Every structure is written in structure tokens, then in C-alpha cells.
């Protein structure tokens, strides 16, 4: 048993040495999810979702007046036509008074 472990452990380490998804600076999502964002001041907020061709595929929030502080919203992975988006990279842009204040990236897959 000890000998088997001696061979298995290096093999396992070799396989997993490059697998550190937890450190990716983006979230991997398969279903509707909620995200949070912070507003530095009161203002008019827009939340839009862009695909990897930088096209606006969904407006989550438009011209909404919000106060400064932490807020949350969700995306059901549907586009404007209520069709689930294809697998890929998507970007949620938080726009305050017509300025992009934050961009969040998500890897969407089934």
C-alpha cells in the first residue's frame, strides 16, 4: 500500500500542479448567479453584459438611480431575446453616470 502511494502521489501532484482554478480572477458560472458592486457615489446606474466580441447582449439595469454603497444584481444567463447565451466569456459592466466604474468577467458554460 505504501509503495502504491509513493507512486500515486507524485502522479497526482503532476496532474494537479497546473490546476489552480480557484485563483482565476473571474468566476465560472453554469446557472443564474448574483453579483455585487460598490458605488462610490449616488448616481444613475446602468448594468450591461458584453460578450467576447464586446457586443451588448443584455441590459440588466438601465438609468436606475441608486445611492452610494454596496448593491447586488443577478443575471440568468439569458440575452435580450430570452435565449441562453452560448458558452464563453462574458463581461458585466457597471456604469455610473455614463462612466464605467467596474468590469466583472465570467466564464459561462453548461
Amino acid at each position, binding site marked *: 500500500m505504501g509503495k502504491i502511494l509513493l507512486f500515486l502521489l*507524485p502522479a497526482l*501532484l503532476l496532474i494537479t500542479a497546473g490546476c489552480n482554478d480557484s*485563483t482565476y480572477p473571474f468566476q*465560472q458560472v453554469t446557472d443564474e448567479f448574483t453579483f455585487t458592486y460598490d458605488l462610490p457615489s449616488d448616481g444613475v446606474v446602468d448594468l450591461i453584459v458584453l460578450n467576447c*466580441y*464586446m457586443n451588448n447582449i443584455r441590459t440588466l439595469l438601465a438609468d436606475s438611480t441608486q445611492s452610494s454603497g454596496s448593491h447586488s444584481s443577478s443575471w440568468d444567463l439569458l440575452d435580450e431575446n430570452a435565449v441562453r447565451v452560448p458558452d*464563453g466569456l462574458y463581461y458585466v459592466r457597471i456604469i455610473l453616470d455614463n462612466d464605467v466604474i467596474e468590469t466583472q468577467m465570467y*466564464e459561462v458554460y453548461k
Partner: protein
Amino acid sequence: MTLLMLLLCTIGQPYDGSNDSFSPGFRIGFTFMASFPSMQNEKDFADMNTAAGLDFELGSTAWGGSVEVLGDVSEKFRIRGSVGGTNFSGGYSEGFNAYQNIFLVLFTLGLFSGSGEDDVIELNDQAISIEAQAYYVLTRTPGMSISAGAGPMYTFATRQLDSPNTGTSGSGSGLGFVASLRLDQESTFKLGCLPLMFGLEAGYRMNSVKISADDYELDFSGPFVKLGSYIGI
């Protein structure tokens, strides 16, 4: 240039110089190209990734090569036809897990190491271009010529974006235009019994391709430098 001279010394044989006058003919050659494309959309895309917290690195040079046929149709005119490929890439990568790597090296007594980079996001823009160009020979001396030319090009391009669990691709094609100045060193050496020529070309290409359905433009427009070797056929 050093490489060119080395190549000349290795495979070239001194030409006897008995035929310095112009004679029409065709040559086939292979070229290596470096271009500096605009790719404004890809730059914006890289900026968007950077804004999202990724250290996204985008190249500034597109590398490629081509197979060309070069023909001297008269003493003053030259034509060229080519099929070539170009690659432009970028991405985001991470280092391997340091702790696991330490254990891996210890357990395998240093035989294995997970050193290197893990490509998390990979962006590859590839183009295959068909070019036809006509040149006017500005000056021709025995063994050397300088010519200026222009012509149309047609490009088929693809964009591939890979992430750990997804792959997104798009493709399209478009017409472009290329103008250049070329310097050819010819008739000085022979490769066996075949005349050998080296060409250096620099110019500008206007070459933008729309990726279908998504209205996304891959702009390969920009200056380029090309180095090639040709043999007579």
C-alpha cells in the same frame, strides 16, 4: 542580414556573370513576414480584460510566411502572386501552483517539475491571404533591382478565444490592398543549376476582416517587413 549572408555562403555558388542582361522568367520562393497590425478591437478587448482584473498580454507583432511566385514580365515590370498565413495572439496565463510544485519536485527527486505557465485565456487571430501585386522596377543593376508595387489581396480570417471550459470562434473574409517597395538581390549566386535570389520587401497593407454575425472587425492593417528566398523555375 547576417543570416542572409550565412545562407548565401553556405548554399550559394558564385555566378560566372556571363549573363547580366535581363531575361524574362519566373521564380518560386518562401518568405518570412513580420507585420504590425492595427487590431484596435483586440486592443480594446485586452483593455476590457485588464479592467476585469486580468493581466492580459496582447502581442504587437503578427508573424507569418508565404509561398510566392515572382515573375519578371519585362525589364520594367514584375508581378507577384502569393498565398500566406499570419498569426496574431494574446492571452492571460498563470504560474503553476507553487506549493504543489515544491512537493512534486521533492517526491520525484527533481525528475518532474511543474514550472512554466498555465495558459488560462488564449486568443488567436489567424489570417490566410491571397495576394496579387504588380511592380514597377525603379532601378535595375546587374544582380540587384529595386521595385515598387501595389495590388489587391483577399483574406480569410479566424478568431479563436479559449478559456478553461469554453472555446469561441468566429470567421470571415474581406478584400484588402497592399503597397510595397522591394529590393531583390539576384543573379549573383546559383543554387546548383538554379538561379537563386533573395528579396527584402517592406510596405503597408490595408486589410480588415469582419467576423461574421458579430460585426467584430479584425484589422490586420499596418506596416510589414518580409524576407524571402526564391529559385528560378
